[in-house]
């Protein structure tokens, strides 16, 4: 119950957009169009359960198991679904493999389509106009900004995500990682290496992001 006689300072007023979101939530709940418990579940999932560690496990397995990798590259959806990673929006996942002759990089020029089940919510820079515009126009310049320089003979291919198709980069397995098991390999796989704006870390470096 609100205190109508209080001299205490009142609760901190949320920002205008925060109040508008609260209003939408109230209206839609009253109309039975949403269930607040379902909202909490979605937030908990994306805040705490889904993140780049999912993609890193897939990459580490692909590095360790040639049959798994072949199946993943041929048709990722059933392979990922078996691991429990499937798109809630019904989108298809495509895994693109980095090789000495081709480096892959992922962007969404439309908005910010991203392989949520494998990488979680995209970082701010992925959603920025600067990245979305420059990744296609000058991918090598963007890679340089991320501290990545590729040999001249390596072509850069940029994959533009859509509502229907989301891409995950399978980075090259770093030298010196031959003896590592899947858990140790997964530690070398950063989020950015699966977007294509970084390479997998070498065993003595550890994953940066």
């Amino acid at each position, binding site marked *: 119950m609100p205190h109508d006689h209080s001299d205490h300072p009142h609760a901190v007023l*949320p920002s205008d957009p925060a109040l508008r979101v609260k209003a939408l939530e109230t209206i*839609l709940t009253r109309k039975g169009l949403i269930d607040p418990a379902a909202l909490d579940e979605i937030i908990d999932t994306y805040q705490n359960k889904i993140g780049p560690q999912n993609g890193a496990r897939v990459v580490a397995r692909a590095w360790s198991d040639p049959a798994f990798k072949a199946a993943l590259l041929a048709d990722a959806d059933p392979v990922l679904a078996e691991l429990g990673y499937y798109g809630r929006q*019904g989108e298809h996942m495509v895994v693109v493999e980095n090789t000495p002759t081709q480096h892959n990089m992922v962007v969404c020029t439309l908005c910010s389509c991203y392989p949520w089940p494998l990488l979680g919510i995209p970082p*701010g820079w992925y959603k920025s106009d600067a990245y979305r515009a420059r990744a296609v126009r000058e991918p090598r310049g963007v890679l340089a900004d991320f501290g990545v320089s590729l040999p001249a003979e390596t072509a850069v291919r940029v994959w533009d995500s859509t509502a229907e198709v989301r891409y995950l980069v399978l980075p090259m397995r770093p030298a010196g990682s031959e003896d590592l098991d899947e858990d140790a390999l997964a530690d070398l796989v950063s989020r950015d290496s699966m977007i294509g704006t970084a390479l997998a870390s070498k065993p003595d470096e550890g994953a940066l992001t």
Partner: protein
Amino acid sequence: MSDCISHSAPEPAFLEPWHAQVFALTVSLNEAGRFSWADWVTRFSQTLRRNGLSRELDGGADYFDAWLETLEAILAEAGSASPQEVALVRRDWEEAYLSTPHGDPVHLAG
């Protein structure tokens, strides 16, 4: 799997609680069949393009401002939440915050 914790994401998924709320609202409405994700992407990308004409969007707060603007427009057109309803309930929430002592949970009256 407890070993996942050791390499969890270093930055929070959402910078502000309302970013998470509006994201979850949208995903929930999509999953309930209120609109397809392809339709959402079309509308959202139109908003981003329009907002990006006057200034370069940095992918932070401006990204979720555009997200909210898009969702409000879709819900208004669908008749699920008109701008008038949103303005009224927003005002109710504002009054609830201003009349609730600091530290107490804020509820809508009535």
